[in-house]
């Protein structure tokens, strides 16, 4: 039997120990180094203060990458939430034919980023592409900033769709039946039941999916790498892709440390702020 006092800590121990060991502590080292002067070879040669941050903000390409990331968040979160919620709402009642639809909505979970990336690159490739054939358009999708961003958002919806759908659908289906029956007895139509009973009941899970989407959107880099490589003309270069270019392709680890520190701290404070406001309500 576990001692009552110690129990919660023991239960959390594996998770917290792993989190500290492979995430928090190495990250704190990164934060520390971002205020130092570190050579390309990794030697600390002195205290740098905010100099890494100053040179980062002097870089116009970095400033632009912040804009691209925010734009991506603004486009992605509503579209992703709307589509997954729509799919879950449409299939939340089990029917004879919902099985196939359910499976299709789950299926993106089985398809990896690299597979989707390849498929999307092919679908939107050049003038002679399947997308142009279906839509009857003549667009060089990945050669203009606007359409390239649209394709990127579209790709990312697919990447998150399966998991978000399963979470929302499970939430809908675990709503207490008696609540809905009571509403129906009160003469609520299905739309009103949805709005007043069901959506509030799945609120927590909806927040979780939005939260996960926000995380994915703020930190987006791999889809950019696979689909557009930040192009055309750097229009889809997001903060974390910029990070990738600097830290991995150009070996500028110090700039990488600075960006990742900034990025993590900003996102964490964003979340802390929302959490506080929620508690105050």
């Amino acid at each position, binding site marked *: 039997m576990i001692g009552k006092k110690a*129990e*919660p800590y023991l239960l*959390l121990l*594996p*998770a*917290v120990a*792993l*989190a*500290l060991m*492979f*995430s928090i502590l*190495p*990250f704190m080292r*990164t934060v520390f180094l971002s205020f130092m002067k570190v050579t390309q070879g990794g030697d600390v040669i002195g205290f740098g203060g905010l100099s890494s941050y100053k040179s980062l903000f002097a870089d116009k390409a970095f400033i632009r990458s912040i804009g691209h990331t925010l734009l991506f968040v603004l486009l992605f979160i509503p579209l992703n939430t709307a589509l997954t919620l*729509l799919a879950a709402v*449409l299939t939340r009642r*089990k029917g004879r034919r919902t099985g*196939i*639809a*359910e499976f*299709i*909505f*789950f*299926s*993106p*979970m*089985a*398809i*990896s980023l690299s*597979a*989707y990336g*390849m498929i999307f690159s*092919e*679908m939107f490739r050049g003038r*002679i*592409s*399947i997308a142009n*054939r279906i839509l009857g358009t003549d667009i060089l999708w990945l050669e203009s900033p606007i359409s390239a961003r649209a394709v990127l958002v579209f790709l990312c919806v*697919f990447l998150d769709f399966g998991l978000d759908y*399963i*979470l929302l659908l*499970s*939430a809908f*289906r*675990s709503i*207490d039946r008696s609540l809905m029956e009571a509403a129906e007895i009160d003469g609520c139509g*299905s*739309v009103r039941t949805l709005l007043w009973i069901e959506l509030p009941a799945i*609120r*927590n*899970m909806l927040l*979780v999916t939005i*939260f*996960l989407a926000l995380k994915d959107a703020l*930190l987006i880099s791999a889809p950019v790498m696979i689909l557009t490589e930040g192009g055309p003309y750097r229009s889809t270069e997001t903060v*974390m892709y910029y*990070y990738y270019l600097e830290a*991995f392709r150009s070996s500028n680890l110090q700039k990488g440390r600075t960006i990742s520190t900034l*990025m993590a701290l900003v996102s*964490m404070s964003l979340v802390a702020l929302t959490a506080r406001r929620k508690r105050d309500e």
Partner: protein
Amino acid sequence: MSKAIRTILAALLAAIIAFPFLYGFSTSFFSVVDFTDSQARFLPSAISLRNYALALSHRHFPRYVLNSTITSVMLSLLRLAVSIPAAFALTHLRFRGQRLIAGIIMATLFIPSDVLLYENYSTIASMGLLDSYMGIILPSIFSGASVLMLYGAFLAGDRDVYDAARIDGAGDLRYMWQILTPLYSPFDAAILIQSFISSFNSYLWPLIVTNRDRMRTVQIGLTMLGFAEEGEKGAQFAAAMIVTIPFLALLAAGRNMIMKALVDTKED
């Protein structure tokens, strides 16, 4: 919303969601010239298994599939085993430092894993875990996102069940194992499946921590085939399909389990 509109909407959305995979499947049979035809093709000019034969031509492929399967199964089970108690403690118990610990766990969400590559490599190397399954999975067993999903699910859940179980004299461990885990099996399954698939498809980390051919995983094997450099797009698609289709089958099986669990728990 009338039923007809609902059906049409669902069908339309399903068609959009299904299309990329179907198109990818079709292109996995394309010949080299099919890709650069004067009009974009929906279907290959001829059905040939050449691309699949190419994709399966790697001599160590079965070993890589085995390694990926072992590491992915282990990772997803361990991740669940670590996440359930953590989410349970955070939602069902009251203790000092609760907010701090919740904060630590949420904070990890926003630390991009790329940033930790070099540091984690050093840790794994100093633990002597290079070229081992443990080295491949250890850094990613903990996932803030998985804890968060369960946290959200448990929060929304009924506390009456917990109270009743306690009155019945069930300890927390038994409650977690016998009641909580089955009750939230759709979420468990979602985490298992998602962890399995993302682990199966990981590339850079397994590449960095392994050297021996017998420890290598599928994605490394696929790049080793060099289709991208050689312009063998069809074979690239075939390779992607070879790893995707078993997952779809797994998902189809898993879906039935999830849905059955849902119905069962609700009707008990």
